[in-house]
């Protein structure tokens, strides 16, 4: 055994010193050439097995890759959806901001922007929940609008959220007037999806035409004032009907604000109350 170890050490020394060019290297090259056919034969025999092993390995890799990519894809889809939502929210909030800073915004009010965090679960629940509450200065009966028009009023307030009853709810009503003819009436919920609102109590002699714009009339007396300030856009007249038996003109109105897909709204908070809160 000692002799073999010694021989190995001698071989190592000579081979290391020769560095590929010398008698031992020549012998090694010759021996390698002799052994080459065996190596080639073994390689050919092993090739199908190696291929099979590589194939099964790649299959396993492909499976794990597929699972990883699926997760990645899901994550990216979620990110895209979140970004699209953020983009849409950004557009909505910009519109609200433009409205709040524009000439149409009612005087004497401050606009508090709030995101809609919950929508009605059924057709009969004409209400939304917004992410602003008592701590933000919201009180019951505060009007709620968007840049397009009137939405409704706050019907219930908690510390951080509020419930807003939409104009299309049966319990809602707002005194309104026709901008073109100054005809007065009360806007209430309509008969269905084709005409979500109606302008009620319009005398027969008053003139109301299709495509007229209806806005809140807003009134105030020394002791009382209407819930909604004057001049907030409500909707457009879509049909006008009169019959001999009816006491009032039948006026159907389509709201300007899309009440079915609200994302953010403005709560109108009277400036004097805001000053008091400070």
């Amino acid at each position, binding site marked *: 055994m000692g002799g*073999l170890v010694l021989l190995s050490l001698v*071989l190592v020394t000579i081979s290391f010193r020769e560095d590929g060019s010398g008698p031992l290297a020549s012998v090694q090259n010759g021996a390698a050439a002799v052994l080459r056919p065996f190596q080639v034969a*073994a390689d050919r025999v*092993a090739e199908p097995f190696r291929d099979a092993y590589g194939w099964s390995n790649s299959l396993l890799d492909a499976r794990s890759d597929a699972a990883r990519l699926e997760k990645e894809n899901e994550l990216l889809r979620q990110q895209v959806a979140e970004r699209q939502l953020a983009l849409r929210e950004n557009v909505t909030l910009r519109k609200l901001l433009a409205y709040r800073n524009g000439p149409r915004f009612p005087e004497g009010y401050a606009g508090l922007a709030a995101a809609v965090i919950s929508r009605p679960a059924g057709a009969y629940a004409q209400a939304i929940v917004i992410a602003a509450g008592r701590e933000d200065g919201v009180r019951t009966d505060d009007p709620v609008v968007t840049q397009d028009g009137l939405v409704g009023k706050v019907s219930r307030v908690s510390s951080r959220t509020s419930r807003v009853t939409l104009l299309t709810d049966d319990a809602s009503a707002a005194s309104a007037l026709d901008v073109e003819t100054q005809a007065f009436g009360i806007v209430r919920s309509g008969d269905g999806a084709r005409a979500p609102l109606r302008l009620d109590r319009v005398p027969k002699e008053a003139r109301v035409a299709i495509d007229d714009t209806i806005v809140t009339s807003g009134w105030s007396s020394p002791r009382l004032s209407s819930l909604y300030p004057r001049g907030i856009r409500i909707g457009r007249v879509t049909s006008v009907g009169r019959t001999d038996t009816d006491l009032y003109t039948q006026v159907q109105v389509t709201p300007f604000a899309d009440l079915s897909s609200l994302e953010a709204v403005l709560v109108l908070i009277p400036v004097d109350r805001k000053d008091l809160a400070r």
Partner: protein
Amino acid sequence: MSAALRIAPLVFVAAIVQVTVLGGARVLWAEPDLLLVTIVCVALAAGSIPGAAAGFAGGLLVDVMTLGTLGTTSIVLTLAGYWAGRYGETTGRGRRYAAPLAAFAISIFAGLGAVALHFLLGEPVAARDALVTAVPSAILAAVLALGVSRITGLILEPPRGLERPRQVELV
């Protein structure tokens, strides 16, 4: 047939397979070393001197075929064959799990020895790689030894019927 003639093809085939098929292969962080396992099993069955000789020859074949520095693999396998042979002649004799145990232990020492030898020769070696693969390779060697020891046992141990008594006792 002499033991050397039966060992030689075994070592030769193992060296060829090691270089051409298993060289550079990895199975779950383990690098299979069929030649080392074959040397260990041959040494356990045939003894320390045949084991050392088989290790030397097998290592030399690998060094020749890979055109590496001659003697580096053979010195490691010579020592591995001798140690396995001594173990088989002493404490490992007749033990059922001698082959996997010896393969496991020698695989670790042989791996570390090879790294040390290449380091001494100034060749670039990554000790981290050797350490990471040492234990999985040793486990794989132990598993391989279970099969290889049966094959070497069948080849190296002569059929019982052919064994001839070398001495007789007169009663």
